[in-house]
């Protein structure tokens, strides 16, 4: 432990001082220094606490968005609506339906949304409406 914390010269100096002492003398000396050592340590700690330190760098708070594993059209559109723009599945279906109707997509092409998961609804929708049209409407709806 001493070797790790002190220089070679300091250890040699310590040995030179100690080698002349008998065991009793050493015991007496340690008893005497006990109070001093405690005070010195407390002093050092206080100094360390008071010393001004450089402010810690704060990284940008990044949104932890987990991207979808597969890159299929329905998954990407669903991800854009729910994860990026924070819509619930029902809200996403409603908003997207309205945007598509507004863009002139025929109502007959929109699948029935009763109790369907968003991904399934989108998959059914993409059989009738081009994905590019759906994605464009989704981005506008989410804005």
């Amino acid at each position, binding site marked *: 432990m001493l070797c790790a914390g002190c220089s070679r010269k300091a250890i040699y100096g310590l040995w030179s001082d100690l080698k002349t002492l008998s065991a009793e003398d050493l015991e007496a000396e340690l008893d005497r220094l006990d109070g001093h050592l405690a005070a010195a340590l407390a002093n050092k700690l206080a100094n360390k606490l008071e010393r001004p330190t450089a402010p810690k760098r704060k990284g940008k708070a990044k949104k932890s968005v987990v991207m979808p594993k597969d890159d299929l*059209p329905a998954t990407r559109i669903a991800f854009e609506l729910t994860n990026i723009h924070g819509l619930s599945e029902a809200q996403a279906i409603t908003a997207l339906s309205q945007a598509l109707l507004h863009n002139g997509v025929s109502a007959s092409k929109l699948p029935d949304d009763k109790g369907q998961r968003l991904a399934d609804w989108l998959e059914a929708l993409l059989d009738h409406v*081009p*994905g*590019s*049209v759906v*994605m464009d409407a989704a981005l506008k709806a989410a804005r």
Partner: protein
Amino acid sequence: MRMTTVVAAVMNLKGGVGKTTLCGNIARALADREAKKILIMDLDSQCNLSQLFFPPEEIDRRSKRSVYQCFDSRQFLKEPPYPADICLNVFNNDKGSRVDFICGSAETFGLAITVPGGLLPQAAQQHFNDFMRKARESYDIVMFDTNPSATFTTLCALEASNFLIAPITMDVFSLRGIHLITRTLCRKFPWLNNAKQVRILANRIPRSPSAPEAERLRRDENTIRQLYPDLSPSIMVSRIHESKMLWHKAPHGKFVIDREVHAFHRHRLLKIKEDFDQAARELLLSMKDAFGDADGNSQNSLDALRRLFAQGDLRPVV
């Protein structure tokens, strides 16, 4: 009543975005998806697509039955050939789909550097237009693989086309190539202004990107949409992912997705096949959206009437 023949130019003024690879394999996927008669024409004088079906020496030998014959009007009063005279059947399936291919020719390079406007180019263009009239009668979809510059043959292709399939790699440069086409050439070809007739297909997207990489891709796509808002509705959701399967040429006479591979690699081939299948579904719907089919047309007209009634622009006469 069938859908208007879609004549699609696969084009981007930036090179290396995957025009040739996508042109061949998308045609194959379109034929797989629906019963369609499809003709592919290799208008690139480098004949890269032709090398998928023929060895190089065969391409030179086929000069008399190549795409050059569609332009060659040197013999006056010579009728352009029928597609059946010069094409090669490269795919058939049980549904009744058929893909025919017209081989490219190095001789089209001479045409490619021709300055339009002269008598000979005018005659060549007329010859090509006459050929295309015959092709429209025989096929549901005609696809051109073009070279990455606005040369004479490419301009002839755009003149005959009514649909643009533009591959991009996900960067601003390749979208700039399409922006140049739609902004600069739209005066000559006004149909390029219609977003329904332009489809942009992202190619070489990483298959399993890390989370930051996927986030970057999403950001890049959004940036592109903001930079070119008029092209935004044309960007396809389907994507073609990067795959080593597409690097290697298939044996002559086969599309890449028909390759026979070791069982260990079969899942990769299936994934690529799924990519092309998704793209074909989206393209077919886009084509129907742009040109309508028998049912689509009547449905669209009814919907348009319903909207006018709803907006109060049209009132029933009592």
